[in-house]
């Protein structure tokens, strides 16, 4: 499992997505949590377990819990079997099961993509896209999307520090922090758009979209194991689909 990091980028993506999407095919509300657990184990074997779980905690986990609670309380339908009631809110078994499906699937798919981007460098992704012959403009769009969030985070930190130096309270409870953050959202988004535009010109200045053969100092190669893994993943998905159609 620790060798997943060294796989070709597209192979890594196929492998992780195979694990990530299998809960969408298998009819069991707990499969999503099992595959999420498997992905977590992969992250630990690749030396980034703590970082990975921190990202999950700050992003997907809150959403998953929220989704589970909402589905448990607010699912509509006939013949619901209620198991608990708090004031006028009723929790049904069907709601819990639906919530488990949705949150499990979200955790599974989301974590597979998060892990992919954590164990694959931007340089490898760009090299993979170049090798595949993807249009440079498409490559740039993907690159810009990957970089946008970390850069917006850096900029928002800078804006918050600037606010703080002007005496605006930026730490404390969530209301205080929102009051400081909300006015800076518009300039943050606008400057991100401008920076993306300037970066496109920077790439143009470095002949990024020029036609003709390109050299690559950073080389990535597909090995036999990459091809084998690809076909195994495809086979797994096919078997799951067949089982879903004919057995489950």
């Amino acid at each position, binding site marked *: 499992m620790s060798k997943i990091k060294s796989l070709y980028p597209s192979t890594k993506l196929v492998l992780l997505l195979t694990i990530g999407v299998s809960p969408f095919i298998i009819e069991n509300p707990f499969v999503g949590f099992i595959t999420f657990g498997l992905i977590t184990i992969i992250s630990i074997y690749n030396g980034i377990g703590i970082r990975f779980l921190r990202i999950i905690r700050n992003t997907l986990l809150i959403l998953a819990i929220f989704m589970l609670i909402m589905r448990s309380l607010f699912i509509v339908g006939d013949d619901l079997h209620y198991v608990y009631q708090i004031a006028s809110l009723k929790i049904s078994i069907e709601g819990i099961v639906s919530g488990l499906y949705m949150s499990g699937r979200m955790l599974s798919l989301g974590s597979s993509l998060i892990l992919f981007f954590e164990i694959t*460098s*931007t*340089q490898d992704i*760009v090299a993979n896209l170049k090798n595949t012959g993807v249009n440079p403009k498409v490559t740039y769009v993907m*690159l810009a999307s990957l*970089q946008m969030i970390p850069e917006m985070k850096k900029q928002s930190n800078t804006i918050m520090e600037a606010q703080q130096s002007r005496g605006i309270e930026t730490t404390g409870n969530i209301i205080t922090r929102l009051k400081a953050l909300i006015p800076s959202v518009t300039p943050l988004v606008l400057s991100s758009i401008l*920076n993306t*535009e*300037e*970066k*496109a*010109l*920077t*790439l*143009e*200045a*470095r*002949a*990024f*979209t*020029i*036609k*003709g*053969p*390109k*050299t*690559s*100092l*950073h080389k990535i190669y597909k090995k036999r194991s990459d091809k084998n893994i690809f076909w195994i993943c495809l086979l797994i998905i096919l078997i799951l689909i067949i089982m879903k159609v004919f057995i489950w």
Partner: protein
Amino acid sequence: MLIDYFDFNNNEGVYMVNVRLEGVSFRYLIAKNDVLKNISLELHSGKLTSIIGPNGAGKTTLAEIIRGFIPAYFQGDLRGKLYFDENVISINEENVAEYSKKIGFIFQNPFTQITGSTDSVFEEIAFGLENIGIAEERIIDRVSEILRLTNLSELKDRNPMDLSGGQKQRVAFASILAMDPDIYIIDEPTSQLDPASTEEIFMIISALKKMHKTILLIENKIELVAEYSDYVVAMNEGEVIAYGTPQSVFSSERIKDTDVEIPVYTKLFKEMGKTEGLPVTKKESISKLKGD
């Protein structure tokens, strides 16, 4: 020496490119007024032409027109003609990429000049060369030499995204230098640099002149503009208000009541009541004070 090293693109020797603008005017798509009004000027090979002027004068817009980013990327009403060596040039979305081999552009904002697709300064500088298909061994040699010449060797393994603004600016400059274009358009390359690094950049620009490169510089450090430039273009509100040697431009009456800055030495002599033979550099002013 830099001049001994460069000669990649031409087997026939030195290639000189002159750039000429004739009656160039431009208005952005949603703007009411022209941001450039009837600009005519020449850039000569082996010469440094500097554009000076207050913010909003149209300096960067002019630079982007020469490079072809306007109209390829920025729509608007562009009028007039652009010549490279007496050939009328029309750069558009289809051919703008081809001109990256011929025209190097260094932008004002260092934070957007790092591509983000490389993990080291070495790879960042090599990026342009990879795109134009230079052979791997030549890329390695060229980048190694550029790192040495621009004093960036100690940063070669650092992630360029982790560098300071000044370091990013130097890496961006080195990246374009490595591509060895015929024309350099350099937009405020020293805004984030300390005095020592600023001097290094200007030394490199001097070396590029000796290699017969055509250089257009946008710069606010007026004293350095006066010292190193062969020609100065003073712009204000989209117009060229003075164009010529540093001496003629900085002593011109036409820039007197505008926001165009002049060197401190020239200002000093003007305030002393001098009107003729005004010095523009430290050396000239010392010479004048000594009565040479």
